């Protein structure tokens, strides 16, 4: 489905960092089972067809990719490994046939930088953690570094009865970071979701994440 054909590369520095992540990703309790850790993802949809390119590492220290696509009637399934590459060799390949490999690699590079810092006990800022594009990986990182590190200097804007907490973190020279801190009732895992800085209540913020106004957001059931 990709129309652009270009060569995409993974910098040597990222490949070195990925070796360590491959060794240690089990420390991140992402709820994933198995030997593969999918880190970057690039979607491409045209009309009613979807495509997704996933890239990550496995426990054997190999770079893994999965390029899949189909009709919108059947969403993507769990990625399965299409190809394996050595992390010692520069990864150069044409763009994914279905998914967007370039976007997946950009995602991989930025996520790898932050995960590497976390796994080597380097300091990470709340903004870096919140910028992790995958909410599950972000949650696992928050759990590893501690909630206090994310919520440091956070101001409690509102605590909802069932909608979590709305937090504001002021960032120097940048837009405030407005976060909805929620606990999933099924898994009891805690997530931080970024919401617009105009949010005033936790309920309004939670409703916004699903495209609802606060007054219309009354759940019949959740799980």
């Amino acid at each position, binding site marked *: 489905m990709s129309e652009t054909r270009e060569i995409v590369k993974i910098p040597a520095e990222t490949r070195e960092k990925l070796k360590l992540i491959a060794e240690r990703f089990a420390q991140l309790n992402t709820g994933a089972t198995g030997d593969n850790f999918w880190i970057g993802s690039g979607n491409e949809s045209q009309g009613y067809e979807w495509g997704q390119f996933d890239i990550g590492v496995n426990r054997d220290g190999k770079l893994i990719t999965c390029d899949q696509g189909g009709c*919108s009637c*059947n969403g993507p*399934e*769990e990625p399965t490994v299409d190809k394996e590459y050595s992390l010692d060799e520069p990864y150069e390949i044409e763009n994914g046939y279905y998914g967007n490999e370039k976007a997946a690699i950009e995602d991989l590079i930025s996520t790898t930088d932050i995960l590497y810092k976390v796994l080597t006990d380097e300091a990470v800022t709340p903004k870096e953690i919140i910028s992790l594009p*995958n909410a599950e990986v972000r949650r696992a990182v928050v759990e590893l570094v501690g909630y206090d590190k994310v919520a440091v200097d956070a101001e409690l804007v509102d605590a909802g009865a069932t909608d979590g907490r709305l937090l504001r973190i002021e960032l120097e020279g940048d837009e405030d970071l*407005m976060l909805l801190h929620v606990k999933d009732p099924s898994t009891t895992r805690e997530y931080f*979701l970024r919401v617009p800085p105009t949010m005033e209540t936790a309920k309004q913020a939670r409703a916004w994440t699903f*495209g609802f106004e606060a007054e219309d957001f009354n*759940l019949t059931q959740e799980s």
Partner: protein
Amino acid sequence: MRNIYRHGDLLVHTINRPDLRLIKQFVEDNRAVLLRGEATGHNHSLNGDFILYRSNDLKEQGLGYFEVTGKAHLDHEEHGVIDLPQGFYAIVRQREYTPERIVYVRD
């Protein structure tokens, strides 16, 4: 009043049948994966007696629509089962804010 069911980062809510040209989707074994987690590998699936639709309007956002015609439920490896009464539903994916753009929540 519409009924709203939240299932992790997926939400479905009852609606009147939308005034759009809807195209029936092929579904195998009475099961459709509506959304899957990349990091977790876990899927939100719709199971049972239902008809899955997408809109003919390409600008339509969202994951589509479905009509529960008999017994149907939402399922996921980590969330409980939610039984859905008969009716017409819209599928919504949770989103979050970034200063550059609004993005879907990924897990």
